[in-house]
């Protein structure tokens, strides 16, 4: 009888052995790392608006000053990569489409406007298109990284549509340019 019980116990052990590593590995499966020293991502912009007043068709505007109009400051404790993105402009129910290639000759029947930025210190007159797609901000063709406590300045350029109907007259335009920061 003892031999029988021993045999059965052995069989039980053999069955359970492959399961043991699995049950042991179940402890502490998920590791979430949030860095021991608290990291904070933070940027500040010293401008909020750009008031142009009344604008005609096919006209170009630049911020004043052209290259140092707005200052971005890295107020966090990590270096950051910067990104930039534009939007279509809204006039109540009407739109100006944001150009993807810097042209202003219209998308279907909609007027098309264009936006660019220029980073201070970049070669004079070099402007980069701001589009609907968020892309890394570039200076001299290279993606920009802003170190802790460092600043960067930029200016904007706007080209109004080459044509827009009288439906747009007297309406207020709203659009946004988003400046993003992410840990480098």
């Amino acid at each position: 009888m003892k031999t029988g019980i021993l045999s059965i116990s052995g069989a039980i052990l053999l069955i359970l052995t492959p399961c043991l590593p699995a049950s042991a590995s179940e402890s502490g499966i998920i590791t979430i790392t949030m860095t021991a020293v608290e990291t904070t991502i933070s940027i500040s912009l010293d401008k909020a608006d750009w008031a142009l007043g009344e604008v005609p068709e096919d006209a170009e505007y630049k911020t004043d000053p052209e290259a140092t109009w707005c200052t971005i400051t890295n107020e966090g404790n990590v270096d950051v990569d910067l990104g930039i993105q534009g939007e279509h402009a809204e006039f109540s129910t009407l739109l100006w489409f944001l150009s993807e290639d810097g042209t202003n000759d219209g998308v279907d029947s909609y007027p098309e406007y264009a936006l660019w930025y220029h980073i201070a210190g970049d070669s004079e007159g070099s402007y980069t298109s701001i589009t609907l797609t968020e892309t890394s901000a570039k200076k001299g063709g290279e993606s920009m990284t802003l170190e802790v406590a460092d600043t960067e300045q930029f200016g904007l350029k706007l080209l109004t549509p080459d044509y827009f109907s009288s439906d747009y007259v007297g309406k207020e335009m709203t659009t946004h340019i988003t400046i993003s920061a992410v840990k480098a």
Partner: protein
Amino acid sequence: MTRYLIWLSIALLFAIASLPSAAQAQSFGVSPAEVTIDGLLPGEEAEFELAIHNHYYAAHTFVLSTSHPWERRPGRADLPDDSWIGFSPQQVEVAANSQAAVRVTLAIPSNQEWSDRDWEVWLGVTPEEKEFLVANCYVRVLVSTGTQAQAGSNIGLIAGIVIAVLLLSYAVYYSRRKAKPEHQS
């Protein structure tokens, strides 16, 4: 159509004119700047907290959203589905020069397809009241999933226990049955 010059009263306000803060500088922050989650299994959920720091002189509401990176860490792909990320709350009002916490959950569906993957997703924090220039801070979330083998092993473990209990019951029954005739004699 005849082209003529139309002067448009755009008042390129580009912003909400009624906001008294419109001319103020924008400044806020989020911590941590990066979150790494390793060994998350399909069917499991990870949870962590973000702190939003409002450096404005007035209370502001901040909105959280997911975004696809314009540049990912090497070897990582976009998170396949943004709905796997949840925010509680999705938007939060933070008092002036104060901070508030937002709980983030990441739930991977229970599907072998999502084993052994390396993903990256960005969590964006931006003020609800947008001016012409909008500041936006992203938290990088790096997610690595483990293998489903463990789930298989759990099934094996349960099956093993069931078989062991059956064998043990039989052993007890067998030993008692063997013992009875000895008492009778």
